């Protein structure tokens, strides 16, 4: 029942359920830094060096990257640098570290920063900029971002009016995972409005099911999936303008809008009839890891699981992800069928050096060229770069995500907890919503978070 290990494909297998055997290029690649430029890029045969001409000859130069992206997701990243390495002669040194988010601050402050870091939260970018070590983005990067991204994305990469970091990848958080087979067998339809979603849920309850499953346990970050839930409802029930004011603290954290949003989440997650399929009662959401949260869908013990696009990696490699597979996702609908609010996240490329090769590399990463190269070698990756041709994406969830992100009618909003001050976004928001789930009432919860907002 398992993919044969030891074959050159096993890395793809690990890349998880996402791969589905479509990632043909990966099998030939070794560790990018170990190889001479040019030898490992068989998948990208016949590289056209024209787009890279502008960078000039940078032979013998090195660029170091430090990121939180580790095995197996790091492989497509290293792979996507190959054309750049080959055409410019630069060697890219990649270091992935799960503890990136805390270690990068230590390194920056101790003058030991890498040339380039992939920062997963605008809030963290702000703190890095505060250390005074981050360089402003070069003009070429700014031009690329103006061309390929919406103004909102540029804003996320800016601190105090200065533009520092170009967006890299993106993830769509407004997704609900489900079993296409179950939907077909039971005659369920993908909901188009929030009211539909509620009706669907009730229908499932009537069919004797526990519709929703969830897990919020994530070590020191326990609680973050709840903040995503609440943000999704905040965005839907009160609209993007109010959402923006809320995350900037222009309206109080504990105002009527937030109360409404959290109560709306409570109608799902604090309802013993609705949760926690495959895991037990409401409280079991707190003890279930977010990685396990949606797995009961595969067992038929749960029908719906709200989680970001990257969750695809958590399904075992035996499960097929796709519209006709074992599991797939639909867009968490807006309040009405014609509104399309999207909650998402992404990484940003911050540079701590301004040597020509570093600038060239930043420029490359912000280009449509890179986005398409990356799409071809990745599974479970998407970007909001408008230069991306969705046809280059490898798997159905990525295609769905790109569709949602690039939909001109969509209103994209970044994960608010990543934008709030760390004392809230990385601390009390997680902690208090966790306490809320295990019994604390909505008012106390929101009041406590409001009280923790740095003065």
């Amino acid at each position: 029942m398992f993919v044969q290990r030891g074959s050159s494909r096993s890395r793809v297998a690990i890349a998880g359920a996402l791969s589905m055997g479509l990632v043909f290029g990966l099998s030939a690649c070794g560790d990018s830094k170990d190889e001479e430029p040019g030898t490992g890029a068989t998948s990208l045969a016949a590289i056209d060096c024209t787009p890279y001409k502008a960078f000039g000859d940078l032979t013998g130069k090195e660029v170091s990257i430090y990121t939180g992206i580790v095995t197996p997701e790091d492989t497509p990243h290293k792979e996507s640098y190959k054309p750049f390495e080959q055409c410019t002669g630069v060697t890219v040194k990649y270091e992935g570290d799960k503890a990136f988010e805390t270690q990068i601050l230590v390194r920056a402050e101790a003058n030991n920063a890498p040339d380039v870091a992939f920062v997963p939260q605008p809030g963290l970018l702000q703190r890095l900029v505060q250390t005074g070590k981050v360089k402003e983005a070069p003009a070429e990067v700014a031009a690329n971002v103006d061309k390929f991204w919406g103004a909102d994305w540029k804003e996320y990469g800016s601190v105090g009016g200065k533009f520092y970091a170009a967006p890299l990848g993106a993830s769509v958080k407004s997704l609900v995972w489900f079993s296409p087979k179950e939907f077909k067998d039971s005659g369920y339809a993908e909901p188009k409005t929030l009211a539909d979603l509620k009706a669907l849920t009730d229908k499932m309850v009537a069919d004797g099911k526990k519709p929703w499953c969830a897990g919020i346990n994530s070590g020191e970050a326990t609680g973050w999936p709840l903040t995503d839930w609440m943000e999704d409802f905040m965005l839907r029930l009160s609209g993007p303008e109010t959402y923006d004011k809320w995350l900037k603290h222009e309206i109080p954290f504990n105002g009527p809008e937030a109360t409404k949003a959290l109560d709306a989440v409570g109608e799902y997650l604090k309802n013993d009839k609705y949760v926690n399929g495959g895991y037990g009662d409401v409280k079991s959401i707190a003890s279930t890891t977010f990685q396990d949260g949606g797995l009961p869908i595969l067992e038929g013990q749960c029908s719906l699981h709200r989680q970001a696009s990257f969750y695809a990696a958590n399904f075992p490699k035996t499960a097929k992800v796709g519209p006709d597979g074992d599991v797939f996702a639909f867009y968490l609908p807006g309040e009405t069928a014609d509104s399309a609010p999207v909650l998402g996240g992404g990484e940003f490329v911050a540079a701590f050096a301004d040597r020509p090769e570093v600038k060239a590399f930043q420029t490359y990463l912000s280009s449509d060229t890179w986005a398409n190269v990356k799409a071809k070698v990745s599974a479970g990756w998407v970007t909001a770069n408008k230069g991306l041709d969705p046809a280059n994406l490898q798997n159905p969830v990525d295609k769905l995500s790109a569709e949602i992100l690039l939909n001109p009618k969509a209103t994209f909003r970044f994960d608010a907890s990543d934008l709030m001050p760390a004392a809230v976004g990385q601390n009390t928001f997680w902690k208090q919503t966790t306490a809320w789930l295990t019994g604390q009432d909505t008012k106390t919860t929101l009041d406590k978070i409001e009280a923790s907002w740095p003065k």
Partner: protein
Amino acid sequence: MTTEAPLTTAPVGGAVKKVTTPAAAAKKKLSSPWASLAAIVIAVLWTVPTFGLLVTSFRPEADIKKTGWWTFFSNPLVTFENYEAVFGAEEGVNLADYFLNSLIITIPSVIIPLFLASLAAYAFAWMNFPGKNLLFIVIFALQIVPLQVTLIPLLTFFVDAGLAGTFWTVWLAHSTFALPLAIYLLHNFIKEVPSSLIEAARIDGAGHVSIFFRVLLPLLTPALAAFGIFQFLWVWNDLLVALTFTGPQISPITVQLSNMTGTRGTAWYLLSAGAFVSMVVPVTVFLLLQRYFVRGLLAGSVKG
């Protein structure tokens, strides 16, 4: 009371002379079957968690997530895939390299603090100088400094010294962090050495250097082996220091283990196998050095 006798007591495991120790007497009180039972209960309680991990490391990924490891016994389905994945260069986790890094980090990080601490412990135990007690108290209290507060200043220092990204950072950091506890423990052993031995050497005209080498070090060698084992384990299993100071080329096995679980995943099947691989060295070291270890600590309680 002679001092030599306890120091040469045979190590455990070897031929042990049958004398009544207080422990044996206390055990008798508990009457043999009960004592054995209690010992077995503790041993089982302490071993079951690790045993569960061992079994888990041989189970297929899907089973690990769905059923308890004990179901293995009614439905034994063995797979080596987890271990293959851990060792396969294709996962991007070539553990052999990181094994070497772990060894290279650990060996000097054990040797350096041991010698420095024994010199210091000797000074505290057998020398008189102003401020001795205060200095000892300060060093003792430094044990509590959370390592996290030291990371930024120390890394800044290493960057300024041009050592960032080299093994020197971890060697110096581990050695420094080990000193307070090492000095405290070794001081406890050294001060128990009967002063008559030291005095006798002094009367013979020996200076501090020769006393340290001729009298103390032979008595202390086993104690050093003992502390050496603990220091070895702590350094080998360290994650925090390695994360901060090492780069990709010199990082130890613990860093790789923690990264192996994937960017957002908890790959229990990989972790369980990887954890066992990383345990092999420390357990072997313990088993090999256990006899020295026991003898080493004997020196500490000579007074009786």
